[in-house]
């Protein structure tokens, strides 16, 4: 048996998969912020999991990102090269708001008086300019003890080229500050740019003690309850990692929250034969969009938390403040706006009747008829359409609109913002949306999927089984992943293939060792070598898969060609005559876990009358009139069933909207496939 538990801000999702019977159990429990381990055990109980029969437990947690959001992580000190204590505080000295003369950077994770300098210096090739001064390192260690530091981020200049001084510092700290958590920058990133590497190191150090104690406690409790399987954590760069890796490099957990759904999307894409997907995960406060191409997640080498860079491979997920709880408001100039502020779970949308008065996306969806007030979350939560209408009516009056115009305007603006987010991860990366299908999940994805698809010319929307728990489902599909990289700047024209192969051999041996430590034999290891390339003189790179980790000189021209093609696709031009250079060599190693089979649903008779619950009017933005939508119960639909829009398919935690002209069919895993007439 496999179980996944995904802790979110409000709810904890759990999915139990019994591979023998093929049964899938989806449950939700309330998140227990004060003791998340209790929440995990409660989730196990809710799913009636027999703990001793679980082979794999895959876990996702927001612990790290919450500590960052609330600034409640460890007391961290920075140890850096003499003369550079302010690299972290200064950051890149930039700001996004163009006209704000009073701009402040976000509150720093480390105050200036906790940044310490050690006398040492390397040059960019890793040559020692100033030897590591052990006396100054010991003096720093003394001050760390004096300041009761819990966690230390060590980042020396040019350590990506030569990590010896960071290793020497670790040695001093292990002797003079025993018990203090230490993060060395070169262990997380072997790439240049000191601020970005320092920031990555600080974030890791900041969440390390809290993550470590949580994971150790949870593991202990599970083991004492009889758990004997493998305990894995989801990883922001895709795949999973072992408990040991998660404790050593918790920075890989920080942005892992929305990763499960994308990983699940990649796996599902192969099962259902649609290997190019745009995933739309719409929750209560935000929407996460990502891209699956040829059945693979797409990875970027740098992401941000607030304005703080994290330089590790991370699934390319674009998040915007467009969720079910996003609040509608009127700008000073009299324009209707939606988000990014959210009513969250408390007080929530006005229709929840928990004291929220602001009109939200959910209130608008209810008012125009997308939602059934009597069947929200399968009837578990009673929502009040009158309160929704009141909240929207107040806005409508201020801008001289009718109730329904304003409500459909709120939905329309949200859809436009979501379409914008999809543009960022597709068109801006050189992919045309029409070659993709939308995979819509989360509580709200299936509301907006068809409209967003229309806006962008995407021919198809797919709603997976259990859309509201899909992230947790995705977590059951993971392999173990390790990423290694080494900066090596050299022109491809005069490249010494032997040196490149030596670097790959080094990356291979690190990767082999990590996978062996995780318990994978040679049969269950796969390696994906790639390289970051650019035209000589450019700074930014394009990641190009390599034909292997032992290159031959005859392959170079093909690599250059691949790069030119990718550059042309992403940016609309290539410079065929310009020399191309390697910047960074990368290797991703996978430890392959047995793939669970997703249960299939049987085929239906083709008659969907039995699933039809009735109909309800839905307000149409374009015509300004109501149109009757047939309403179906998803639980009673079977494989091969076909429904023509306009229609609505309801299930306890999600609602799929199918517009006029759209045709929906049910696939063999129970996925709803909505085809648009394009």
């Amino acid at each position, binding site marked *: 048996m496999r179980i996944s538990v995904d802790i979110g801000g409000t709810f904890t999702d759990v999915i139990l998969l019994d591979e023998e019977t093929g049964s899938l159990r989806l449950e939700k429990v309330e998140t227990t912020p004060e003791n998340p381990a209790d929440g995990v055990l409660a989730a196990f109980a809710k799913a009636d999991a027999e703990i001793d029969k679980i082979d794999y437990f895959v876990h996702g947690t927001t612990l790290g990102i919450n500590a960052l959001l609330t600034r409640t992580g460890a007391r961290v000190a920075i140890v850096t090269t003499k*003369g550079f204590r302010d690299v972290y505080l*200064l950051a890149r000295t930039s700001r996004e*708001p163009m006209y704000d003369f009073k701009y402040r950077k976000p509150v720093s994770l480390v105050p200036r*008086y906790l940044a310490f300098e050690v006398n040492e210096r390397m040059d960019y090739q890793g040559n020692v300019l100033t030897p590591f001064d052990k006396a100054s390192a010991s003096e720093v260690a003394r001050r760390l003890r004096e300041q009761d530091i819990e966690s230390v981020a060590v980042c020396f200049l040019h350590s990506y080229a030569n990590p010896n001084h960071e290793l020497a510092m670790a040695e001093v700290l292990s002797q003079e500050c025993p018990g203090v958590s230490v993060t060395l920058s070169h262990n997380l990133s072997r790439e240049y740019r000191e601020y970005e590497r320092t920031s990555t190191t600080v974030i890791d150090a900041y969440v390390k003690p809290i993550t470590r104690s949580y994971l150790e406690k949870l593991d202990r409790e599970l083991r004492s309850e009889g758990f004997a399987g493998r305990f894995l954590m989801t990883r922001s760069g895709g795949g999973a990692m072992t408990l040991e890796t998660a404790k050593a490099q918790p920075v890989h957990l920080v942005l892992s929250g929305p990763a499960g759904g994308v990983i699940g999307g990649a796996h599902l894409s192969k099962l259902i034969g649609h290997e190019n997907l745009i995933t739309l995960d719409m929750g209560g406060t935000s929407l996460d969009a990502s891209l699956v191409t040829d059945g693979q997640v797409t990875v970027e080498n740098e992401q941000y938390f607030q304005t703080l860079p994290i330089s590790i491979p991370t699934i390319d997920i674009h998040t915007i403040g467009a969720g079910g709880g996003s609040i509608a408001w009127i700008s000073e100039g009299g*324009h209707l706006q939606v988000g990014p502020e959210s009513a969250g779970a408390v007080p929530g949308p006005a229709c929840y009747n928990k004291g929220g008065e602001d009109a939200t996306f959910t209130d608008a969806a209810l008012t125009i008829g997308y939602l059934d007030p009597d069947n929200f979350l399968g009837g578990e939560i009673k929502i009040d359409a009158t309160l929704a209408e009141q909240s929207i009516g107040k806005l409508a009056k201020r801008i001289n609109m009718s109730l329904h115009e304003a409500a459909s305007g709120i939905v329309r603006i949200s859809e436009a913002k979501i379409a*914008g987010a999809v543009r960022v991860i597709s068109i801006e990366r050189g992919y045309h949306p029409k070659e993709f299908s939308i995979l819509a999940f989360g509580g709200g994805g299936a509301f907006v999927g068809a409209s967003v698809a229309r806006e962008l010319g995407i021919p198809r929307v797919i709603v997976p089984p259990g859309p509201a728990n899909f992230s947790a489902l995705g977590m059951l599909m993971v392999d173990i992943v390790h990423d290694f990289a080494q900066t090596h700047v050299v022109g491809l024209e005069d490249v010494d293939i032997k040196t490149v192969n030596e670097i790959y051999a080094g990356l291979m041996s690190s990767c082999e060792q990590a996978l062996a430590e995780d318990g994978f034999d040679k049969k269950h290891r796969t390696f994906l070598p790639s390289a970051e390339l650019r035209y000589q003189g*450019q*700074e930014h790179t394009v990641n190009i898969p390599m034909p292997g980790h032992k290159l031959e000189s005859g392959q170079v021209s093909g690599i250059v060609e691949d790069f030119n093609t990718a550059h042309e696709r992403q940016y609309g031009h290539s410079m065929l005559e310009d020399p191309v250079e390697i910047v960074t060599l990368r290797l991703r190693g996978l430890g392959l876990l047995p793939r669970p089979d997703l249960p299939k649903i049987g085929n239906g008779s083709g008659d969907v009358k039995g699933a039809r619950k009735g109909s309800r009017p839905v307000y149409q933005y374009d015509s300004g009139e109501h149109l009757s939508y047939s309403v179906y119960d998803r639980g009673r639909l079977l494989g091969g069933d076909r429904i023509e829009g306009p229609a609505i398919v309801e299930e306890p935690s999600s609602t799929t909207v199918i517009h006029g002209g759209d045709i929906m069919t049910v696939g063999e895993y129970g996925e709803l496939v909505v085809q648009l007439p394009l």
Partner: protein
Amino acid sequence: MSKIDQITVEVIHNYLLSAAKEMERNLMRTSYNTIIYEIRDFGLGIYDTQFRLLAESPGLAIFTRGNDYGLMKTMEFLGVGNIDPGDVVLTSYPYWSSAHPLDVLAVSPIFHEDRLIGYTAIKQHWLDLGQKDPGYCLDTTSVYQEGLLLPAAKIYKQGVLNQELLNIIRFNNRLPNRVIGDMNAQISACRTGERRVKELVEKFGVDTYEQAIEEILDHGERIARARLAELPNGTWSAEDWLDDDGVDKDTMLKLKVEVTITGEEMIIDWTGSQPATVGPMNLPLGCTLGVSGLAFKGVTTPDTPANAGNFRPLTVIAPEGEMMHAIPPAPTFTIWASLLAPEVILKALAQGLPDVVPACSGGDVFDVMGLGVHPKTGRSWVEATNEGVGFGGHAHGDGEDGIMHLTEPGCRNNPVEVLEMKAPWIVENYYLRRDSGGPGEHRGGLGVTRTYHFLAPSSVLTLVKKTKTKPWGMAGGKDGENGHVIVWPGTEKEEITGAISYPMAAEDVIVNNSGGGGGWGDPFKRDPEKVLEDVRNDFVSLASAKDDYGVVIDPKTMTIEAKTTVAMRGSEPSS
């Protein structure tokens, strides 16, 4: 327009903003030059057929606003009837493009079927166009020394590359490959914006699109007018000084402004500023309009995306032929008056709006540029970085420490590890300057120090023109420390200066100190706990805490000595 169209307006507005953002990403990712991808020395936008800005993306704020004028002059010269789909037009004639000739404006028309529906425009810094000196010019006396002038020249005609023009650019160039690579990135980004707007118009139709942009602009105007109406009416004036014009090093240059707010409009009048300068400190009119608009927007609508509607209530006056309105053939290369100009506008407004505007920032961009031939590769190199300054304190809080000047929001510093990989120098240190922020109830932000140690014969240029006057404090706050450059520190040749262009020998050292922001309000009213925190963080020295803030701190225990502090301040400390 019908009510429901308002939703469509919002949809179209979002689309235009994301198209501008995409242009920026495309440019950053494909350019060949640190000055673009790290320092973001560019400005870009999407325009309608009347050259009105619809959407922009962060870069150099002075560029974006100046592009409005540059686009208009380019099209006036070319003739709107003489532009075809697939054309790309380059302008480096400074009196039109509104910056110096190395900041080249590229314009790409947007057509829907046969109809012209707008433009995309990007101005960005080119590394060379055969100007008098490599890198940058500090002492030209005529535009004809400042590089190749491109007067609305088509580099693409109906989608076909103009090889002759390309050859002219290539042959008038010290760094042809990097310049052509950057130009390709610039054109590609223009085309990206062009494609997006075309798609948008195809989707909504020209009529809807045109109605929507009128409303986007009207909306921009409405919010600007609403904010303007909240400000007190009056007329205030101020002046400040730039170091020199680069030729006559002994004469400081005056910036004088008179700002009037009525219920209806803001008038910014530069009459009384410096007459035309002999050296290259003259400012093209579009640039003066741009930086005046920057200050106006910062005071009225800093929180909304910019479009031409925002600037309708603004009138700018700059007498023709003077420093703030250059005419041919006046040299314009060192456009540093554009950096100080918005500060002087805020200085005037400070008298009437002390609770709205901040004190002076560090006042400049403190750019250091090195160039030479790299001994390891034999290739030419040019690297530069601007430095953060302190922002001015204001009624609601302290100024930020080490942040790029008001005029260059998107700009980033160049990392030490990048600088050292690309050029034969070592950065010896990089840190915040203690006590450089002006004391105040709300402290001015700190400036920054960076020290360069050359490893091989090279040249260095420093672009700094406000070193002789201090960043002013306001409402009782004290001045910040002004920035300066120290060449050959600790040697007999040591020189403390501003803008220079010197050869450097191996082992030569230069220190760049950027300015701190001015303080706001009486420093004796600053919360002593905040002063203590500043001392603990070494932003403020013990001596300054005592002398400037009247807070006496015991360095051993790091606690406030209450009695002496009260005595110093003459009242109870607030904590």
